[in-house]
């Protein structure tokens, strides 16, 4: 049963990933990526990690992809431009190297050592349980957890800094305009 679900989900995930790369329309690409995310979320469920399942859906499908769609729609950039590809020669090269990489990866994977169970990888009974995860975040991974907070802070600062310039000024100017206009109106 589990194997069957795994095979179906994995196939969907792969199809989504490949279709995402191949699709000519950015919105279609986004949707295929969404399909891929959904399939990966189900894979997390199969691995008994419901928390990761929910987070995968909320963060990737629910937030990141929505913003992607938003930006693509706002810019009207869903179509690939018809202008000749400047780096057309890179395409066959990229595909060729990709195939080589895949062959190497497969050759590697077929060796026994790659399939050996990972050291120290026996899953805990509470694996994937939100409470256990929280405990881990606040004990073993306390420092990375805090650093992540700082990273997010910096990202927020960045968004504000890169956006407020100009806007700040024009708002001020607009208010000034309105004030003078009002004064002039009043005088008249």
């Amino acid at each position, binding site marked *: 049963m589990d194997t069957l679900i795994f095979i179906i989900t994995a196939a969907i995930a792969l199809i989504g990933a490949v279709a995402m790369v191949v699709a000519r329309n950015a919105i279609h690409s986004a949707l295929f990526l969404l399909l891929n995310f959904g399939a990966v979320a189900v894979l997390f469920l199969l691995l008994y990690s419901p928390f990761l399942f929910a987070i995968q859906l909320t963060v990737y499908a629910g937030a990141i992809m929505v913003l992607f769609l938003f930006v693509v729609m706002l810019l009207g950039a869903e179509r690939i431009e018809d202008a000749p590809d400047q780096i057309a020669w890179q395409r066959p090269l990229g595909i060729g190297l990709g195939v080589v990489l895949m062959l190497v990866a497969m050759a590697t994977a077929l060796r026994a050592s790659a399939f050996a169970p990972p*050291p120290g990888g026996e899953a805990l009974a509470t694996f994937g349980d939100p409470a256990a995860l929280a405990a881990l975040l606040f004990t073993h991974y*306390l*420092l990375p957890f805090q650093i992540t907070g700082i990273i997010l802070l910096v990202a927020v*600062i960045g968004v*504000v800094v*890169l956006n407020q310039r100009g806007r700040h000024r024009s708002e001020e100017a607009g208010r000034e305009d309105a004030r003078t206009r009002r004064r002039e109106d009043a005088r008249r």
Partner: protein
Amino acid sequence: MEPIQIPPVDLTLIAPLLTITAWAIVLLLVDAFLIPDERKKLTGYLALAGLAVTALVAVPLWNVDGSTFSDMVVLDRYSLTLTWLFLLIGGLTIAMALEYLPRHGIEQGEFYPLILFAVASMILLAQATDLIVIFLGIELLSLTLYILTGFAYPRVTSEEAGMKYLIMGAFAAGFFAYGIALIYGATGSTNLAAINAYLAAEPFVLSEQVLLLAGVGLLLITFGFKIALVPFHMWTPDVYEGAPTPVAAFMSVGTKAAALAVLLRILGSAFPLAYEFWLPVLSVLAAVTMLVGNLGALTQTNVKRMLAYSSISHAGYVLLGVIVATERGVEAFLFYMLAYALTNLGAFAVVIALEQRSESAWSLDDFSGLFQRQPFLAIAMAIFMFSLAGVPPTAGFIAKFYVFTAAYEGGLGWLALIGLLTSAIAVYFYLRVVLRMFTRDPGRPVEPAMDRGLHLNITLAAGLTLLIGLLPMPVVNLVERSLVALGL
């Protein structure tokens, strides 16, 4: 539900990191709510004060040793020396920016806290002993740099540089994360010491550790990008040219120093057994970097781009010190980073002094006859160029000497030879600048914008470059005492 017990942590071990991060956060608030728009320089001075306080906080830790946070960070003399180096870099950058930002109409108080965050992430990298912390440190550093690169937002080149750096950096981060995953799969840990312990526990056969090697390879790609090693260097000239000049100066020394420091720690404490794999790879990279960096710089007429290529080539030299993985190599690395930081920041400061608003020429012609107009700037620039070229009696000479001897003693004689040859090439384009300044007639009149901060900056950098060149022993003593327990 039983409450989570937070394990005891020793905060003194990360005191410098805490100080500077807290200072940055508070400064951000102070800047937003207390400092009026026309007096943003005050924020800069406060940031300088923060760096100074952090440097003082670090002093009593010289004899402290230990690790905390589940062994994710460590405090040793190696990290402490690097901390001071990073604080120096941050301080010089802020001093440069104090006048630069208002002159170019891009002054915003957030610039200074962002520099503090960048320095904090570099300190974190110097102390990190866990791949996850390293990853986060690199991300924090990169994120601040993306913002700072695009800081001159209305200028298209700045925007382009920010975008380019962001996209390339995002790819690099992806490689790093994947690398960590593979290494974890191979060894069951992300802790550097634990990885080494796992690998040492059983007879280590390189060809059996395919997963591990793939992971290490991916990590090396990321470091190649961050340090700007050839062939991962393509972004460097464009980004340095587009970024606000103080930011370019900061990137050219800060990022490299932090990334190399952490690379040294990873190679030394997690993968000493796999040196058969990474040594040839990095040797070739170093050789190619030295060659391409110097050859690329030859043809540049834009000073900023020339400095960018020169920074690539210097990354190649300093990589020699890292990969020989001997005590002398580490010493050479630290010494080289200090000398290079002083010299390069000084050179960028001179460029800033000559840079005009709304102009993106940075032409070599502006240096023609500089000696007649601004003897101080010309002499300082000459010192920096000599130091970059490695001409005695400057710090750059001692640094190169140090690195090449370390490489030779470590059995990498052929790399030292390539280093020597490429240094000879480099002399050409560094001296070209000097010759122009002293022998040509002035071209178009360029009004240099000298102020106290820049003046002090250039004097300090030039003075120290000469001083270290003449009296290297104190610094040598310092770096000799700041070795890591590298498992060498």
